[in-house]
Structure formats: structure tokens, C-alpha cells
């Protein structure tokens, strides 16, 4: 169990949140012009880094808003939390 700082509600227990996978994956502008491999790349392929990763999270049992998080997957340290549409605060 660890705490997550929702950008809208403040610090809450992790059990109130749902993880939404890797952040900042851009949907291709013309899906019809892609090959099956390229489309599969967009749909399914994720980095799954051991270390600092940019992720999407949803405060599903609170305000139900989506936001982004910079989390170290090896020790669950949260480096930053930022709203949807904002640039990641660190490299």
C-alpha cells in the first residue's frame, strides 16, 4: 500500500486508483493507412521499463479523473504527478 497525490483531491490511498498503462502514446492520425504491424505496435506494444516510467492513472473511486504520473517501477517511488495534456515535469 502506498499513497498517491491526486492532482484534484490530494493524497489518497492507492486502493482508490486504477493504473492505465503507459502515458503519452499518440494515436496515429490515419489508422487506415497503417500496416497491421504498425497498428499492433500502437495498440499493444508498451515499454514496461524497470525504472522511471511515465504512466496514466485514474482516481476511479474518487473524482474519476485521469492524470499522469512519473513512477519508478522498481521501488514505487512517485517522482511527480501532473494533469492530462501537460508535459512531463522531468526528462
Amino acid at each position, binding site marked *: *500500500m502506498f499513497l498517491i497525490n491526486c492532482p*484534484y*483531491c*490530494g*493524497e*489518497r*490511498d492507492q*486502493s*482508490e486508483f486504477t493504473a492505465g498503462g503507459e502515458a503519452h502514446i499518440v494515436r496515429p492520425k490515419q489508422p487506415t493507412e497503417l500496416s497491421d504491424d504498425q497498428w499492433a505496435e500502437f495498440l499493444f506494444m508498451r515499454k514496461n521499463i524497470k525504472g522511471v516510467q511515465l504512466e496514466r492513472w485514474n482516481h476511479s*473511486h*474518487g*473524482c*474519476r*479523473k485521469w492524470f499522469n504520473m512519473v513512477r519508478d517501477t522498481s521501488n514505487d517511488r512517485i517522482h511527480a504527478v501532473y494533469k492530462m495534456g501537460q508535459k512531463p515535469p522531468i526528462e
Partner: protein
Amino acid sequence: MLNFNNPVIDTKEYSEIRISKTEPILKMNLRGKNRDFITKIGKELSIITPVDPNTSASNEKLNLLWLSPDEWLLYSNHMIDLKDANFLDDKLFNEISKKKLGSVTNVSDHWIMINLNGKKVFELLSAGCPYNFNNFKNSKGAVTQTLFNHIDVIIHNKNVNDLNLFVRRSFSEHLFLWMNDAASRI
């Protein structure tokens, strides 16, 4: 036809905890993003719309709870015959939904309001909530949405040791029974 039958929830008293259902209560979900929407609901309801997270505003008749940056829950302070409450429903619908400022949904049958009262209410909540009530306890009007025994709830700090808890109808009887079990052991 809408089903206005309520789940079986009686008033139960334990040492320093009283659990009671207060229904029927009018409840409305209000959603909108822009400034016009926020000032409009304030005007229609004579309440200053709470925009700070986890807060609420009240007058003699109504309470308006912040749920999210673009979502509020409105509920009546007193029991109300829901058939007579249409005026508010219509008024808000005409002024907000029809004018495309936001959306208004009557959720009176969606949520069940359970009142928790007594010195040990926070001990009861601690038995099943992952939320830290330390600051909530001392701030009148505070609102939180959290889990209670794994069930989504909205909790409104109405007064000192006097809370209104909202739970979805289909979960309400189960949560009520669970709370009775927990309260009997505190």
C-alpha cells in the same frame, strides 16, 4: 414505472453510534465545466457553488457537494415527496441542460442516504475505509469520495459526529448489514 421502493434499512443504535436511513431525499447530479454553468447553479439554488476540492456549501433546504472539478451532487436537507420535487428538476433542466450549459440528472433513486451519528462514527469508518479522516473530522462541510468495505461511497461531514453517507442502492443493504456488524464490535 420508476421503482421508489427502498431497501430494508432500519434505524440501529449501538454504543455511541446510530445508523439510520433518511429517505426519500432528493438528489441531483450536476455536471458542467464553464464559468457560466457554475454561476448559473449558484443563482438557481441560492448557493455559492463550491469549487475547492473536498468541500460543500449548504442552505436551509439544500446541500451542494464538490465531487470533481466538473461534477457536483445536490441533495435536500429534509425528506421530500419525490413526486413534489419535480419543480426543481424541471427548473434546473430548463436552465442548464436545455441551454447546453451542462447536464442535470436526477439520481434520487441511484443513491441511498444513510446518516451516521455519534462519538464513535469515525471508528466505524476506520474499520473499512482507506481514507485518513484526521482533517476531515474537524472541518464541517468536508466531502470525500472513497471506499468503505470496498464499496464506493460519498461522505458528507454535516456536523460534529454527524455524517451523511451516500451508497449506491444495490450495495446499500449489504453495506448497512456490514456496518451493523462492525458497529456492534466497537
